[in-house]
């Protein structure tokens, strides 16, 4: 992994690492990938990927109102609100 790849990865992850710490971050990641890469020694052809240990079926519920909207409570717990709205930093530029 080089610095350009790390910068791309940091962008994808929405994270930031100072320029002077980047070599150290690359080294740490490479060490972990050395361990992970031991997977390459295994013969995995006969195995299908497994993403969840249990055989699952989807769960649905009846189309009835269940939890009343706790608007006042949520607004009260937000850092900033104005009447019925949450006040957040500008997110559309």
């Amino acid at each position: 992994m080089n610095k350009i790849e790390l910068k791309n990865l940091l962008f994808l992850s929405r994270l930031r690492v100072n320029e002077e710490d980047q070599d150290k971050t690359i080294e740490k990641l490479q060490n972990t990938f050395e361990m992970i890469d031991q997977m390459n020694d295994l013969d995995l052809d006969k195995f299908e990927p497994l993403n969840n240990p249990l055989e699952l079926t989807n769960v649905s519920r009846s189309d009835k109102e269940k939890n009343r909207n706790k608007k006042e409570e949520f607004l009260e717990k937000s850092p900033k609100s104005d009447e019925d709205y949450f006040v957040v930093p500008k997110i559309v530029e």
Partner: protein
Amino acid sequence: MNFQEIRNNFRDKKVSAKELTEESLKKAKDKSDLNAFISHFEEYALERASYIDTNFDQYIDKPLGGIPIAHKDIFCTDGRKTTCASKMLENFVPPYESTVTKNCNNAGSIMIGKTNMDEFAMGSSNETSFFGPVKNPWDDSLVPGGSSGGSAACVAADITTISTGTDTGGSIRQPAALCGITGLKPTYGLVSRWGMIAFCSSMDQAGPIARDAFACSALLNAMASYDDKDSTCSKRESVDYEKGLSKDFGKLKIGVLKGVENLGISEEVLKAYESSKKILEQLGHSFVELDFTELSSGICSYYVIAPAECSSNLSRFDGIKYGYRSEAKNLSELYLKTRAEGFGDEVQKRILIGSYVLSAGFYDAYYRKAQKVRRMIKSKFDEFFMDVDLVFLPTTLDQAFEMNRESSDPNRMYKEDLLTIPANLAGLPAMSLPNGFSKNLPIGVQFVGNYFSEELLLNTAHKMQEVTDWHKMTP
């Protein structure tokens, strides 16, 4: 006094819930140097204890009636701070209650506080917490293990007799082993994940931590329930685990490790393992040797799948919706600064690994391959359980280690979970219990069972604890 004696005394009105709570709160204060707690709820706990005493008749038969408990700070508690040991959630107050804590409340327990942990449950030493490391009650220069280090230290130090934990790659069993207590990771899906802050959703599972299997069974009775708010929660009929302790499951065939010398297990741990095999033999059980080599590659798979799911789960922390928010000039900078300042080093590292293995071009080489290893491990266990009732192996490679451990192996910390991870990948239940001491420090051993075999696991551990004393030792 152990959990059972305390509960009997409460039921016999020899001690009140208020007295029990006062004692736990006092111990928590006296032992604050351990840093086992992130929050204390003194006023709330005393009020609740008084309520329980006043309404004694309603609580006499409840599995946790009148018993003080400490919850890992990963479970959302309505109106009470839930931090996940992160700066990101330092001031987060959830507007709802997790199913686990709700179930424990309904079972009559009294929450005295929320315990310290590794940040977002990522760690094996409790050193990644934003609120500082937890110390091991047996030796305060050593770690208690992680990520449920605060919950384990709390029980080992006898502050409470029971606590809750979560186990994604060993986070209940490893600290239980390092602190000399008992902990159970249930089958994936037995305990609801609703309100439990997500790290790796396909492996995260909450479970009981206590001094002995008896208390674990009572706590699991309270924790486990079907919950339609968690689509992965099991619909199986509920089992009375406490009752199950007195059942006779007969002579068991137990799978034991073959070729242990290649796994890097310490001499002390191996010695304790061999002597506890003798105890199982005396109890009439027989052994089948199993080759664990393939299972030990689970660690490679885990460090792809867990970071992948973590990078996805933690994308919700953006500085907008809730949690920490940094000051920034524009949206892009707000995301970057909030996440770089709000997450600790280990969490950031895992997000980076996750983004890498999920990114275009690497998906097949890493994520898909890791899922195939996961299938291989599940198949191996399926094969084992055609022949044996339980698998028996050490919980950890070694005993508790010093804080800021320096190692020539940069992945040494990740290897802490080498023996616990396979059960998480396969979604199987596993239980760690103390099985010896060396240098005045505890050692742990674990049973792994087939899906939903918690009753058998608890029963076997309980029978073992009836003829041994390690779980009774206190620092």
